[in-house]
C-alpha cells in the first residue's frame, strides 16, 4: 500500500481544504436555519413562483420551512457541488499528474505493475472521498443537534449516501478520463462536474430532456425525490454507477498500454 500512503500524503492539503470548506458551508447553512425558519413561508412562496427553475431545483415539492426541505435543497447543493468538484479534481489528476509532473519516470521504473499503481491510486481516491463524506456527515448531524432540531435520520442518511455515490460515479468517470490525459486535467475535471450538474438542471426543466437523468449522478441525488419517495431511484442509480464503472474499466484497458513520455 506504498502508493496509497504516498497519494494520501500528497493530497492531504487539498483534502483538508475541500473538507473544511464544504463542512463549514454546510454548518453555516444549518446554523442559519433557526433564524430563517420563520421567514421561510415567504421564501417558499417566492421559490414556488419561479416557473421552470422551481422544478429545476426541486423546490416545487419541498417545504423550506422544515429542516428536511431546507437541508435537501440548500445543503444538498453545497454538498453536491462541493463533493462533485472534489471527486472530479481528485480522480482526473490522479493518473495524469505522473506525466504532467514528469514523475512517471520515477514511479513506473520501479518494480510495480501499472495495474497495481492504478489500483492503489483508485483506492486512495476512494479513501479520500469516504473520509470527506464521513466528516461532512458528522458535521451535518452535529450541527443539527447543536441547533436543537430533531435529526431527520432517514432523509439525512439517504441524502448523504446519494452524494457519496455521486462522488464515486464522478470519480470513476474522471479516473477514466485521467488515463488519456497528460495535462490540463484540472480544467477537464471541473468541466465534467459542471456538465453533469447542468445536465440534471436541464433534465428537470424539460420533459424532452428527461433521459439525461440516466447520464448524470445529480439525478439520483434529487433532494425532492428522496424526501418524497424515501428512497433513491434504483434505475438512475444503476445507470450512474455503470457509467462510473465504465470510466474505471476504460482506464484499466488503456493505461497499461499507454506510452508514458
Amino acid at each position, binding site marked *: 500500500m*506504498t502508493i496509497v500512503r504516498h497519494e494520501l500524503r500528497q493530497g492531504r492539503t487539498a483534502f483538508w481544504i475541500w473538507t473544511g470548506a464544504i463542512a463549514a458551508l454546510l454548518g453555516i447553512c444549518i446554523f442559519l436555519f433557526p433564524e430563517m425558519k420563520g421567514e421561510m413561508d415567504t421564501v417558499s412562496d417566492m421559490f414556488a413562483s419561479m416557473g421552470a427553475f422551481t422544478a429545476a431545483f426541486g423546490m416545487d415539492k419541498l417545504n423550506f420551512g422544515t429542516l428536511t426541505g431546507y437541508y435537501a435543497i440548500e445543503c444538498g447543493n453545497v454538498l453536491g457541488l462541493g463533493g462533485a468538484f472534489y471527486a472530479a479534481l481528485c480522480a482526473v489528476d490522479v493518473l495524469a499528474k505522473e506525466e504532467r509532473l514528469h514523475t512517471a519516470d*520515477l514511479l513506473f*521504473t520501479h518494480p510495480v505493475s501499472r495495474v497495481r499503481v492504478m489500483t492503489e491510486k483508485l483506492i486512495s481516491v476512494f479513501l479520500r472521498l469516504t473520509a470527506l463524506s464521513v466528516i461532512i456527515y458528522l458535521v451535518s448531524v452535529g450541527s443539527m443537534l447543536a441547533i436543537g432540531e430533531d435529526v431527520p435520520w432517514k432523509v439525512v442518511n439517504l441524502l448523504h449516501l446519494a452524494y457519496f455515490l455521486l462522488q464515486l460515479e464522478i470519480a470513476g468517470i474522471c479516473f477514466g478520463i485521467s488515463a488519456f490525459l497528460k495535462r490540463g486535467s484540472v480544467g477537464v475535471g471541473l468541466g465534467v462536474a459542471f456538465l453533469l450538474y447542468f445536465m440534471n438542471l436541464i433534465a428537470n426543466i424539460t420533459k424532452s430532456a428527461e433521459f439525461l437523468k440516466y447520464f448524470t449522478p445529480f439525478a439520483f441525488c434529487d433532494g425532492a425525490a428522496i424526501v418524497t419517495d424515501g428512497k433513491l431511484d434504483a434505475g438512475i442509480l444503476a445507470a450512474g454507477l455503470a457509467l462510473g464503472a465504465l470510466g474505471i474499466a476504460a482506464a484499466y484497458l488503456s493505461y497499461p498500454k499507454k*506510452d*508514458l513520455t
Partner: protein
Amino acid sequence: MDAITTKELTKYYGKTRGIERLNLSVAEGEFFGFIGPNGAGKSTTIRSLLGLIVPTSGEAKIFGKNIRTEKEAVLAECGYLPSEALFYPGMRVKDAVRLSADLRRKDCGAEAAALCERLKLDPARKIDELSFGNRKKVGIVCALQAKPRLLILDEPTGGLDPLIQHEFFEILRERNEEGATVFLSSHVLSEIRRYCRRAAVIRGGSLIACDSVEALSRTNARRVALRGQLELDGLDGLRDVKETEGGVSFLYSGEMKPLLERLAVGEISDLNVTEPDLEEIFLHYYTGNEISSDVRKEEA
C-alpha cells in the same frame, strides 16, 4: 548472460520514427556507453528497455526476461537515473529516497545514508528548494540504493560539479567491480572514453556502430594545421576545414599522395600533422560525415 538484448526493436510515434530495427547486446558486468546526437533515439531506446513505452515491433530483454511480459521482474533488477530527475512537490530528500525503497520493498536505509554522505546530499532538505544538480543527486541515490544488477543512466552528470562527478563515477566503478552492469547514455565523450569499455552509437534511430571504445576511436584521419596558403579544391577526404590565423586547419582521411603533392607546391611556412582527438572522431557519428576508413570497417 546478456544484461541487455534488443532484437529489431522499433518504435514509431504515429508516423514519426523513434528507433528502427535496433539490435543491441550488452553483456552482464559491462560498463557500456550509449552515444548519439539529440533526437537520435537514445531516450526512446531507454524508455523501451524500461517498459515506459510500448515498442511498435521487436523485443527488448533484460537478463533474458522480456520487458513486456515480465516487467516487474525486469524492473526489480534495474536502477534508472533519468536525465532530469523530477519528484513530487513538497517532498523532502528522505521521503523520495524512502518512497523509492518502499516501491522496491527493500530496506535501503544504510546504503541510502552512505550515498547521501558520499554525494554530500542533506536528506532533510526539501527537493523543491534544491538546484538541478542536487536534484540529480537525489535521483542517483534512488537509482543506486537498492544495488541493482543493471544501472541505466541517462545523462547522469548534468548539473553535478566536478568533485561530485568524480565521486559518482567512483561509486559506479565500485558497483561495476562488484558485478553490476552500467549502461551510460551520455553526450560527454570524455566520460565514455574514461569509463566505458564498449560503446554504441545511435543516429537517426539506427545503431550505426557498436564496438570497443578503443576500436571506435581508431582512425587513419589526421588533423592537418598549416600556416601559409594551400589549394584544397578537389582534394578528397577533407572535412572540418577551418580558417586559422594566417593558415588553415582541416581533418584529412584521403590518400596521402595527393595531399603531399598539394603541400609540395603550396606556400607553407609551418606544418603540423596530428591524430584527431576523440571528440573530433566521434563528431562524425553525430554529423554523418565520413572520417575514417577504419571506423567504416568496424561498422561493417
